[in-house]
Structure formats: structure tokens, C-alpha cells
């Protein structure tokens, strides 16, 4: 029993680290623009499909596939930003959200046009059997995801709090009007944050898909949902919150799956999300979400 709990927790942290990276991307966009990009997952998926295409057509190895995936996600992110966010700065945040949902449908169909079968193989990054530490099974590629998530969080934190760009980012997130008074081009800052988030998402997506060694058109919805739930659990818009939310989501899911099966696991997760929204509070840092930004 204790062993199961420990194994579940470790598995959950591994999966949760991918959620955390997705949540970081969401947070970056939400923090700067106060808008939700529901096309986030599908644009990552476009990147992964392009990567798969390169893999299948030209037999490229993991490194090239990874690069194509990230670049594809950035390109798709650029398209989404230009169509759903840039023209709607003056409108309510919901307009961008609905538009990004519409583009979600576009991207999903585009993916099935690129590769029409239900699933395709994706090259593994590390092809070696799991190893054991203190009786707990650990997969090397999942460990890599965890490491990448920690590195991404640290890098993002340093970028936001220690760089000139990060200062402009925080100024824009806080108060667009005042940031403009100081000569900060807030629209450009927004676009860069958006593309950065897409790159981060592309990296996270690539790690997840490589660990699964296959890709399906369901990935877009999966990534959007997981990233969104993790961000909301973390309390909307804080970097540590996103990471804690992601890890927490992973652990809750792992235990939920073990004890209740997949359907009740999902029910549990949605109920948790619903509760967080109604109470308008994240578990992240215990600060009311409305008060906190990046």
C-alpha cells in the first residue's frame, strides 16, 4: 500500500511536470495579455504533426524532429496571435478566447489533413528500460521531462525577474497604459511572450509525445485542457503557481486513476477545477488569484 502510494506519487510528479510546462506557457500568455489562448494545445499539435511528417517522410532522427516540433508550434502560435489576439486588443477578452476556440477547430482539421490516420509513431528520445530506485520504477524519459520542467521554470523566472525584457513584460502585465508611457511597445512584448509560450509548449509537447512514442489528433485538446486546469489550480498567472498546479494535477490524477479508475479520475479533476473557479482561488501560493500577476 505504502509502496503503491509512493509509486503513484512519483508517476504523478513525472506526468505533472509536463502539465507544469504547459501551464507555464498558458501563464505567460495570460499574465501579459489577460487572455486565454484555447488554441494553445492545437498549435503545439501542429508542431508535433510537422515533426512526425519529417520523421515519416525523411526518416529524420529525434533531434531534428524535436526542432521541427518546436518551430512548428511557434509558427502556429504566430498565426493564432495575429488572427485572434492582435486585432482584438480593444475588445473584451472573451472575443479572443472564442476566436482561439474557432482556430482550434481549424488546426485540428489541418492536422488530420496532414496525416489522416488515427495515430502515428513518434521517435523516442531515450529508448532504454525503466530503472529502479528504492523499489520505485522510474522511466528515464519521464525523468528528462521533470528536469526540463524545472529548467524551464528557473529560466522563465530568471527571464521575468532578472532581465530587461522581463521588466518590460512585468510592466506590461501590470499596467499596459503606464508601460506605454515609459516607451515600452506593449504589443510587441505581447507577441514575443506569445511566441515564447508556444516554444515552451512545443518543447513540453515533444517530450510527452516522445515518451508515448505516438501521436493522435486528440493531443491538442489534451494539452489545452491539462495546461488550463494546471494553471487554474495554481491560481492563474503566477510562475510558481503554474508549476505547483501542474505537479498537483499529475499527482491527483495518478492516485485518482489507481483508486477510482480513469472516468472518476477525470470527474475528480474537473470537479477540482470547477471548485477553484467558483472560489476564485488557486492552491498555488495562497494569494487570491485576482491580485497576482506574473
Amino acid at each position, binding site marked *: 500500500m505504502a509502496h503503491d502510494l509512493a509509486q503513484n506519487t512519483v508517476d504523478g510528479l513525472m506526468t505533472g511536470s509536463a502539465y507544469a510546462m504547459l501551464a507555464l506557457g498558458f501563464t505567460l500568455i495570460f499574465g501579459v495579455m489577460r487572455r486565454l489562448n484555447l488554441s494553445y494545445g492545437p498549435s503545439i499539435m501542429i508542431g508535433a504533426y510537422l515533426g512526425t511528417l519529417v520523421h515519416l517522410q525523411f526518416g529524420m532522427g529525434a533531434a531534428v524532429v524535436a526542432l521541427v516540433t518546436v518551430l512548428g508550434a511557434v509558427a502556429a502560435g504566430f498565426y493564432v496571435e495575429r488572427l485572434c489576439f492582435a486585432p482584438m486588443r480593444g475588445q473584451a477578452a472573451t472575443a479572443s478566447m472564442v476566436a482561439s476556440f474557432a482556430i482550434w477547430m481549424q488546426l485540428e482539421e489541418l492536422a488530420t489533413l496532414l496525416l489522416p490516420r488515427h495515430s502515428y509513431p513518434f521517435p523516442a528520445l531515450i529508448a532504454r528500460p525503466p530503472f529502479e530506485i528504492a523499489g520505485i520504477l522510474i522511466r528515464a524519459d519521464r525523468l528528462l521531462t521533470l528536469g526540463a520542467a524545472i529548467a524551464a521554470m528557473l529560466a522563465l523566472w530568471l527571464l521575468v525577474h532578472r532581465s*530587461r525584457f522581463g*521588466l518590460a513584460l512585468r510592466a506590461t502585465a*501590470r499596467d499596459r*497604459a*503606464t508601460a506605454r508611457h515609459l516607451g515600452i511597445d506593449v504589443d510587441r512584448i505581447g507577441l514575443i511572450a506569445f511566441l515564447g509560450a508556444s516554444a515552451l509548449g512545443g518543447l513540453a509537447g515533444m517530450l510527452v509525445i516522445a515518451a508515448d512514442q505516438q501521436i493522435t489528433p486528440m493531443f491538442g485538446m489534451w494539452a489545452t485542457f491539462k495546461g488550463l486546469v494546471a494553471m487554474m489550480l495554481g491560481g492563474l498567472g503566477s510562475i510558481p503557481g503554474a508549476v505547483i498546479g501542474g505537479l498537483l494535477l499529475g499527482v491527483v490524477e495518478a492516485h485518482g486513476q489507481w483508486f477510482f479508475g480513469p472516468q472518476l479520475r477525470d470527474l475528480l479533476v474537473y470537479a477540482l477545477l470547477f471548485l477553484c473557479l467558483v472560489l476564485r482561488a488557486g492552491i498555488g501560493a495562497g494569494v487570491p488569484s485576482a491580485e497576482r500577476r506574473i
Partner: protein
Amino acid sequence: MLDVRDVVTAYGKIEALKGVTLSVAEGRITCLLGPNGAGKTTLMYSIAGILKPRRGRIALKDREITGRAPDQVVQAGVALVPENRLVFPQMSVRENLTAGAYLRRDRAGIAADMERMFQRFPRLKEREGQLAGTLSGGEQQMLSVARALMSRPRLLLMDEPSLGLAPLVVEEIFRIVTELNRDGTTIFLVEQNAHMALKVAHHFYLMEQGRVSFSGTPGEVEEAEVIQRAYLGSRRAD
């Protein structure tokens, strides 16, 4: 230094500026008085590039800046101290100052200016690492002024710097305004606090209904009557 000619700025159908013409002389303090809703802040925003004038031209030292984006206007040497201060409350004092120098790339120059700001505003030095939101109103106003100065402006626009501050603090703010001007900064000031403003200004304009209705030198004309007209309404009705 600054030339504003026939500027019309509108919000939708409503023209807030109906053809404003005025100029700010280099090395001087010019003050803009006027009642609420006269269009003073709209004029500030039009100069700073936040609002695009519908007509007219704005030039800084013969260089046209009409309709430029705010970052280009800052680049050209204009900095705005906005109404209500608008410091970033969740950033430290130091970070707020750094943000003011956003468009500059000379690290050494920025560091030197930061030290100069701390000398000029010792209160800010004491609170260097504190979050700006925890400062008092007067300290926030000083931070807002210092932040604007960090871009090394040739022209400093100040929108109601005395708003909501206690009388002693207001005096200090105006002392700073005079000092800055003595050190060579041209200042264009919007004020409600007419007595204070007229005491420091070299020239003033009165604005009503989106137009400049009076222009003069303090002390030269019947100040009292002008102020009366601007703020308390004319008495000619009865």
C-alpha cells in the same frame, strides 16, 4: 522647444481638443491651467503619443512628432509623469526606475542616473528595495517623477503632480520642479493647484472647452480673475 499647432483630438464623435495652439519655451516652466474636462490630460496624451490627434501638428525642436507611437516620442526626448502617479505597485523602487530607462541601452549611464536620482530623492534611496505600492502618496509621486527622468528627457510633461497630496508634500514637489528646471529640464505642467503653479511657472496657458482661452505671464495680469474664471466660473452671469 515644443510647438503645438491647431491640434484636434477626439474620442469617437466628441472632440476633446478643438484646435489647440501653444508653445513651450526651452529651459522654462510652462503651466497649463483649466477646469475639469477642459482637455488638459487629453493634450498631454496627444503630445506623449498615447492618443492620436485627428488634425494639427506637434513638433519637438522642429522635429515633427505628431501621431508617433509612445516609444518613439520617449525616444525623441519627451517623458510623461502621468496623473495619479501610476507607479508599478508590485515592483520595487529600483525596478520602477529601471523601467523608466527602458529605451536606453547604456548600462553605465543608467547606473549613474540611478545614483543621481537617489541623491536628489533620498527618501527613495531609503526605500530602494521596497515595493512601490507600500510608499506614501508623496513618495510615489517622487518615484513617478524620478522614473520619468530616467529616460533623460529634454521635455518633462507633468500631469497634476499635486493631486491628492497634503499641502506640505505639494510644496516639496514644487521645490523639486523648480530644482529640475534650474538644472536644465524644460517642464510643461498641468495643475489644479493654481497658486503653487503660478508661483513656479514662467508662462501659463488657460484652457477651457478644449481651447486655449488665455495666455500670459504670472504676476503680469489679473491672476485672481483668471483663476476665478477657470475654476469657480465667471460671475458675470449675475
